[in-house]
């Protein structure tokens, strides 16, 4: 009889705060997961764009009649991919010890910015242009 009527009639403040905190954690986790999925998709897409840019640059270098040693850095394309290339003469000897001329090392790098982070894909081929 002396028990106050409020007893058992609702949640205490601590219980309510705990429930809210759990809910907030769940929501933050959900948001982070969603963000991660979208970011991974964007990264995969950018990597595909970078691969395409490398393939195109490789085609262009392969179509040249002669190569010259040197470095070039291009401008970012419409998708934000910058391709830089470096061509070096490769010194190699044949089985009889003679110098093999006309071998070039072509190093290509496609770089782009992903969420403030610098990312890049590299590709290296050896071409024969006597």
């Amino acid at each position, binding site marked *: 009889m002396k028990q106050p*009527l*409020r007893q058992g*009639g609702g949640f205490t403040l601590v219980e309510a705060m705990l429930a809210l905190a759990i*809910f907030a954690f769940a*929501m933050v986790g*959900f*948001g982070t997961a*969603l963000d991660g*999925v*979208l970011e991974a*998709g*964007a990264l*995969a*897409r950018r990597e*595909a*764009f970078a*691969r*395409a840019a*490398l*393939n*195109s*640059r*490789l*085609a*262009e270098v*392969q*179509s*040249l*009649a002669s190569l010259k040693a040197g470095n070039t850095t291009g401008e970012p*394309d*419409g*998708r934000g991919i910058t391709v830089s290339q470096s061509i070096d003469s*490769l010194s*190699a*000897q*044949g*089985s009889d010890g003679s110098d*093999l001329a006309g*071998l070039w090392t072509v190093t*290509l790098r496609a770089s782009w910015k992903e969420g403030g982070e610098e990312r890049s*894909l590299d*590709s290296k*081929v*050896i*071409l*024969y*242009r*006597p």
Partner: protein
Amino acid sequence: MKRTMATGFTLVEVVLALAIAGLLAISVFAMISASTSGTAQLATESLRERREETLTRLLRQSFANLPIDGGVVLTNIGGDVTTSAALAVTNAPGGMGFLADGEWSGGWILGARPQADGTATLALLKLPVRPGSSTLGDLMEEGPWLPVFPGISRATWRFRTKQNNTWSEAWNEGSGRPDLVALSLEFADGSAASEHLFWLPPVVASTSSAPSSSTINQPVFGTRTPDASVVPTPPASVPSVPTVPGVPIP
């Protein structure tokens, strides 16, 4: 007095509780709709990216394996002026993944076909071995065109040879074989345009039998000249020389 206090919620309490519940519901709804639209956009973009990757891979293979008497011509397939230019590749059995036998293995045309909704679809037309000009006209009119890349607004082709390093917007029957072909795609939804370059390896006629135009049913495949860039003899001092360049990604 004490009893009335415990019988229920006051109006203020109910309103407050409703407001909090409403805020929560709104935030949850916003999150769900953001996730739905984000996922849908991701699906659309990755579908287009996969289409583009597949198309460029097919084109890369087709150009790399173009027979010695295969022809590359920029032709007109009619329709809107901005989309009428199409690339025709003749005497190229097996191009673009088609079977390399039978009457319908002459080559292919890839061009943008206007659609009813104002966009264009890049479509592929299979060519017979010896198309007459009237047959060709009927074919382009009636198809069957195989849709390969929807949602574009314009496809532009450019050509270059290694002798002349300037791009040419036109390529006729007499222009010979280009060394580099560029395909620019502009998209109907306004996303950034893309450009892809394709290399056509140089070919030389085999010495035993010179190819002529009468042998188009059995095209003579040329051998590639040394600048097909395979290292002739891998020197022992450089063990890591790759023998097959052209696959840029490890």
